[in-house]
Each structure stands twice: as structure tokens, then as C-alpha cells.
């Protein structure tokens, strides 16, 4: 395979892919091979986040009524969900996602919610996107610093302390759901970004909403991130990016060849790596769609 361009921006998804298996990272984010069926979880989660954002802005910024705010959020959710053909085995259908939005605001009422958005110059800090240079990194082609980008749902005040707030839709919320967030790089990265903008967040609140076949469940995890953890995260990110560049320069991305290949129902590239002719599998079973960490959207390669 010819050497692809090195990405200008890295986000938590790309980093997680690289540290789990550099070869997977190369196929998925440098050559952009993705499964032919769009990722329903990614799409539905994005549509839900858009619905929350529009509803919150309508209520907190535009002073709309609760009913109109939820209605506007639902309309935005439908537009973001689009015309995707829903997989039969997924609970994340459009109707269920609309139900989830409604359920969220019933559970966490605008006025009764213990978390309120931070208001900065008359604008609630709803939907926080960032793209920041990673100190100490150098893009192998442009010489500029490599960018770290991301997006979370809100900067929120809880008990007079400032938190990153992010909502996650899930298929279930067992006891292990809470353990997902301890040390989680994505969350630490959000805290780093907020602090870079001089928002002194103490940590993050992650709200889980499980979309079950016939019901919804809620959970809330509070994660603190002391500065030493953020510093360690940044150093690790720097090292990870340097390893990415090293692999890219060598033209060799290591294989995991262990649990990453089989966990969570098996890696999507299992059949590719199992073959002596991976390119045949790639062109037959996958299509090339580019994930842009800055816009957080996928587009097809023409």
C-alpha cells in the first residue's frame, strides 16, 4: 500500500485505535477503510448530541419554553439522523433516539437539573469544540505541531464547581459502565482542553442513557482529574504521536495479534489480517470513508 498522508489532527478515537493496534489505525484512519454499513452507534450518538445541543441552546440562550426547546431539539435530531436504513438488530432506531431525547429532559428537567451550563458572555457553554496544538510534536510533512481535537457536550456547574459534561448513549449500563471512565483518555483530554482555555474544570460528569428494547435507564459518573493526571496524559499523548510518526516514517505499523483481535466480538479487520492477501478483503468488504476529527464527520472517498 502506498504511504498515505499523516493526519493533521488526532482525536481520542484515533489515539485509542493506535494504542490498541497500530495496524488497525493504519487501515482505518490512514487508508480510511471502513465497514460498508455506516456505524449506527456513531450516527445515532451524534444525532442525539445534536438534539441535546439545540434543545439546550433554545432553553438557556433563546429563552424558549420547555416544550418548544424539546421540540426544536427533536427536529434537529431527525435532521442529523437523516435517512439511514436502520439495522434490524439495533435499538438505536430514529423513534428510540427521539424517545431517548424526551426521556433525558424528563429525567433531567431544564430547571430542576443539578447541572446548569456555564454562561459566558450571555451564551451558555453548550457544545464545546476544540483543536489545539500538542506541545512538543511536529507533523512529519508540514513541520507544524500535530493538532489534538475533540468535542464535548457542555461546560457545566455542579455544586459551584466547573465540570466537563458529556452524554453517552449505551446499550446497557451495568456496574462496569462506571469503570469505563476512570483514567479514560478521552475524558482527560477534554479536561486538558478546557483548562487550556482557562476554564478551571475539576473533572468530568458523564451521563449515560441506555436505550433498551422497551425502556431507558440513566446513570451518572463523576470523574475528577487532578493536574498531575492531566500532565501525565499529555506526556503519554506526545509519546503516542511520536510512535505514530515513527511507524509512518518506517512504513511499518505493528500488529497487536492478541486480545484486540478478538475482544468485543472481534476486530472488524479480523478477516483482513487473517488473509495472506489483505488488499482483496479490503476492496471487497470495505469502503473508504474519511473520518475528519475536526468536523467529526465521515465523508466518502470519491
Amino acid at each position, binding site marked *: 500500500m502506498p504511504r498515505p498522508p499523516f493526519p493533521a489532527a488526532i482525536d481520542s478515537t484515533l489515539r485509542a485505535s493506535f494504542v490498541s493496534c497500530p495496524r488497525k489505525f493504519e487501515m482505518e484512519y490512514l487508508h480510511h477503510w471502513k465497514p460498508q454499513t455506516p456505524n449506527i452507534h456513531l450516527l445515532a450518538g451524534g444525532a442525539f448530541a445534536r438534539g441535546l445541543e439545540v434543545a439546550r441552546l433554545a432553553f438557556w440562550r433563546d429563552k*424558549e419554553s420547555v416544550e418548544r426547546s*424539546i*421540540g426544536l431539539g427533536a*427536529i434537529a435530531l431527525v435532521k442529523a439522523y437523516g435517512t439511514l436504513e436502520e439495522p434490524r438488530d439495533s435499538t438505536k432506531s430514529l423513534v428510540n433516539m427521539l*424517545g431517548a431525547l*424526551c*426521556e433525558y429532559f424528563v429525567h433531567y428537567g431544564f430547571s430542576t437539573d443539578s447541572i446548569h451550563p456555564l454562561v459566558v458572555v450571555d451564551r451558555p457553554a453548550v457544545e464545546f469544540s476544540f483543536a489545539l496544538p500538542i506541545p512538543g510534536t511536529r507533523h512529519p510533512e508540514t513541520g507544524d505541531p500535530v493538532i489534538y481535537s475533540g468535542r464535548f457536550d457542555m461546560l457545566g456547574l455542579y455544586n459551584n464547581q466547573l465540570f466537563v459534561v458529556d452524554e453517552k448513549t449505551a446499550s446497557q449500563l451495568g456496574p462496569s459502565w462506571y469503570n469505563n471512565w476512570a483514567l479514560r483518555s478521552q475524558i482527560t483530554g477534554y479536561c486538558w482542553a478546557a483548562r487550556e482555555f482557562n476554564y478551571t474544570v475539576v473533572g468530568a460528569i458523564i451521563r449515560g442513557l441506555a436505550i433498551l428494547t*422497551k425502556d431507558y435507564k440513566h446513570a451518572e459518573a463523576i470523574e475528577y482529574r487532578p493536574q498531575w493526571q492531566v500532565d501525565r496524559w499529555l506526556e503519554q499523548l506526545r509519546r503516542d504521536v511520536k510512535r505514530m510518526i515513527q511507524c509512518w516514517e518506517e512504513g511499518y505499523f505493528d500488529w497487536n495479534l492478541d486480545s484486540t483481535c478478538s475482544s468485543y466480538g472481534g476486530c472488524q479487520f479480523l478477516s483482513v489480517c487473517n488473509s495472506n492477501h489483505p488488499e482483496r478483503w479490503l476492496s471487497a468488504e470495505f469502503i473508504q470513508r474519511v473520518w475528519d476529527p475536526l468536523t467529526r464527520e465521515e465523508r466518502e472517498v470519491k
Partner: protein
Amino acid sequence: MTNLSPIDNINRLAKLILEGKDPSPEEMHAALMQIRSERGSAVQARAEAKAKKEAKSAPIDIASLFKPKGE
């Protein structure tokens, strides 16, 4: 449109939205609440059915089986 089921109604509104004909936010909210109400009724019905089933299969009082006859 009152003869439509809540799910058919929300699908109708979604179709309109994707055609660029947004309904009013109030209508959208009302449609969501209909779905929630229907779902809530279904959850309650399932809970009642479960409670009924559990009551039917209540554990047998073993001790009562060993009481001497005539007590």
C-alpha cells in the same frame, strides 16, 4: 391525524422534516409525549403481568407439608 398511532405520527413528522417541511416545535413535542405515554403504559402492563406471574408461582410453604394430620 388523530387516527395515526404515536409511532406512525412521529414517522410522519420525521418524513416532513427530511422533506424540509418542519412541523412546529409544539407539534413535535406533543408527538414525543404520545410515544412516551404509550411506552409508559406498555412498561406498566409488563410490570403488572410479571407481578401476577410471580404471585402464581409463589414458593410452597414446605413446613406446612410436614405438619401432623389433624392439626
